[in-house]
């Protein structure tokens, strides 16, 4: 700068200088704001929740509801249909599973989650067999995209549930019926046999008391005496139960087989894609049956995964990368474990992975080699950056 500051010659410069002097004279120091941003976030979207089991209720022979409360007395609000990802440490391995909140969002004194037994379920069997009131857990805050969006979902909803896929719908149904919301719900709930139906009595009871709710159980393996709908949830059945599809929004939550069966049925009914919402459902049971899996590779073989600046571990080809990492004691953030939330986004430096269709990886992430470790299966030896 020359000896004289040229800025002094700009019209209006001195006036603004005076304004600044006055503003600084009366300025409130912002040190009072320390911690404010975190406090605002914490009440809506805390990263972690501390939870205590206050009650365990048996729903069916194979399902229990755990009531979870906060030792601090505050749980954030959620939208009916969202889940929490519950962290557990079993046999020295820290892992996590997402569970839909089944209680109504009208109160947040507690969250109820309902767990159903799964064959070889590493976490679910532990939750069913071991957990008792007083046990403590850590979870994510409420997450997920499977909820009613008033901006475009409309007032006429069809819920198609399979097995434990009833859980997010319970929260939505409790919300609508408890609060007397003007919204019509048809729930069509597929189970293998009558004993597998979770919340059957409550659904029947709520249906009897609310004209905007109809409930149809559908049994795929009915006992000989069973009266009611049997078989799968077909286009014909849906057509019969819900009538005209115009303006309706269809929501699906259940096991992978249910999507494989019901989505083509909905297409046959000419339900447009924009009127269908699907909850994500975790990794497939057998990845090697997914389209695109290289036929020559066995899912039971192993590869080596090297972390840049970290350890090298062995990983099964047929298992999501995140599971191999967790087994080796390497924590990767995660919430949905279904390829959607992108928290486990990891950079692949070398090697090749298999990612089933529908994993929600950003376009540029594909271009620059990022994968979602919860839905990426190592086909070759890998080097990754976490």
């Amino acid at each position: 700068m020359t000896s004289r500051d040229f800025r002094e010659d700009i019209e209006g410069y001195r006036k603004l200088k005076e304004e600044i002097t006055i503003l600084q004279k009366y300025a409130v120091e912002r040190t009072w704001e320390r911690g404010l941003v975190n406090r605002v976030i914490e009440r809506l979207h805390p990263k972690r929740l501390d939870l205590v089991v206050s009650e365990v209720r048996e729903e069916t022979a194979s399902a229990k509801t755990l009531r979870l409360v906060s030792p601090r007395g505050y749980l954030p609000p959620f939208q009916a249909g969202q889940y929490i990802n519950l962290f557990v440490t079993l046999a020295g391995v820290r892992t996590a599973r997402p569970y839909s909140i089944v209680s109504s969002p009208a109160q947040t004194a507690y969250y109820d989650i309902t767990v159903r037994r799964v064959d070889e379920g590493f976490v679910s069997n532990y939750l069913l067999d071991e957990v008792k009131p007083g046990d403590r857990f850590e979870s994510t805050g409420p997450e997920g995209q499977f909820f009613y969006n008033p901006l475009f979902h409309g007032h006429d909803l069809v819920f198609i549930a399979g097995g434990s896929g009833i859980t997010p719908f319970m929260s939505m149904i409790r919300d609508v019926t408890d609060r007397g919301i003007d919204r019509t719900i048809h729930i069509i709930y597929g189970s293998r046999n009558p004993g597998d139906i979770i919340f059957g009595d409550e659904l029947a009871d709520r249906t009897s008391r609310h004209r905007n709710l109809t409930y149809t159980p559908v049994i795929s393996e009915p006992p000989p005496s069973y009266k009611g709908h049997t078989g799968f949830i077909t286009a014909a059945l849906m057509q019969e139960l819900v009538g005209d599809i115009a303006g309706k929004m269809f929501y699906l939550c259940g096991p992978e087989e249910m999507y494989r069966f019901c989505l083509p049925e909905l297409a046959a009914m000419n339900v447009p894609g924009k009127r269908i919402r699907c909850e994500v459902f975790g990794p497939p049971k057998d990845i090697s049956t997914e389209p695109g899996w290289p036929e020559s590779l066995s899912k039971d073989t192993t590869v080596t995964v090297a972390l840049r600046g970290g350890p090298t571990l062995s990983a099964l080809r047929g298992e999501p990368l995140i599971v191999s990492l967790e087994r080796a004691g390497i924590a990767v953030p995660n919430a949905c474990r279904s390829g959607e939330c992108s928290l486990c986004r990891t950079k692949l430096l070398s090697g090749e992975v298999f990612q089933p269709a529908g994993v929600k990886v950003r376009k540029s992430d594909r271009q620059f080699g990022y994968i979602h470790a919860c839905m990426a299966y190592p086909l070759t030896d890998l080097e990754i950056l976490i």
Partner: protein
Amino acid sequence: MADYDVIVIGAGNGGLTAAADLARRGVKVLLLERHNVPGGCATSFVRGRFEFEVALHQLSGLGTPEKPGPLRGLMHRLGVLGKVDFVEEDTLYRTLIPGTFSVTLKANKVELVATLKDKFPDEGSAIEKFFDLVWDFSTQMISVYYLKDPETSKEKYPLYFKYALKTSQEVLDSFFKDPFLKMAIASYWGYVGLPPSRLSFTDLAILLWAYTEFKPYHMKGGSQALSNAILDSFIAAGGNVHFNCGAKEIVLSEGRARGVITENGDEISAWAVISNASTISTYTELLDSAAVDRDTLRMLGSRSLGPSAVCVYCGLDCEPGDLGIDVSTQFITLNTDMEHQFASWRTLDTPETCGMTCYDVADPEFSPAGACQIVLIVLQYADHWYAIPPTQYAETKYRYAQGLLNIAERAYPGFIDALEEVEVSTPLTHLRYLGHPGGAFYGFDQYAKDSNLFVSPLSGIEGLYFAGAWAGMGGFQPTLESGVAAARAAQGYLEKRGAL
């Protein structure tokens, strides 16, 4: 000895650019990012079959390969040219009052002047004079401000010295009568966040001039593609990045920044620190306030937080043309009262303005075939969002967003019926992901008194530098450039200290 030469806190536009620029010059850099994705604002998220651009509406300053702007040079310097596909737009924007007024300005001075003259024949000669002023002023401003002509004087650059600190409103009023004309010319005020009565003429003139001369752009794959590309350059140059790792404290030694303590409690030493966090959180959270001098704290306290926004990210199951949407950028309003529109940013009243960006107009591949993506935006300050009880947050968010959808529907009937995915962000969403007070993605309010003409971007603490909107201007071009400026300053400091 130090673990690193430089630690960069935050992988937003400013932090990424600073980190990549230093690493490519052989400086040993550690980049810390609280989230698992780089970019800050410059990011995207996936819903259904759509990948939504979060923040970039129109990239300024890039220019064409034949007539490059300053940002093209910066991209080259960072080694990302060729890794990102930029999409040029031929239109600045459409200003629209549904059923009442519509004008579309091309990114070409001759055409836009002709369009306005055609629309406002009574003010034809004033329109010509005004745009000549905008161009002449901008040329002078570039010489003074960017090229830093050492011979700068009132005599050499009379337009700059006369107009630089005038308000846009003063200048518009001195040229024009018709409120529709003034609104059409001033529509970019929403990109700065101040109405013409408070917006310096410099900001309005430079926006009009730069977007016209260098054309508006966006990227294939959205701004996340740029963030990924810059990070890629950084890693390729040997830079080290830690995601899911925020900074808790900047370590001072003898008054100099000498390292960072991470939120995991690890202490990492360095010769210099660049903060891409807000200046407010840097001074009040990362530093011991006792170490910050009173003048700095007073300066901080004298400035007001800029706006955040409510954005409605819409995935539509139709092509833009099916709804009659044929320009990328639109400013839709229900009246010409920009003062009132600005005042409404502090209330939850039904919105009366709506920015509308459709990326598929210039890039039909942006969304899946037969679909398109449209972002509706209105700026909003955060204070009244802080006051909403958490239990009423979702309901409030949807009610406000419905107001924006209603404006879009009035402008383009059939809009709501075509919705396939909708996600809403609010000032609290931006606060959550950026960590900025007020979710203020432009940093402080962009008053002339807060520009670098009056406020130094330097920290007052040796070895500590700032990158990002809080140390200068908001927006993509300014924050990307701020990173290079911080990198240069830090490198100069390292050389002076003999650390390199």
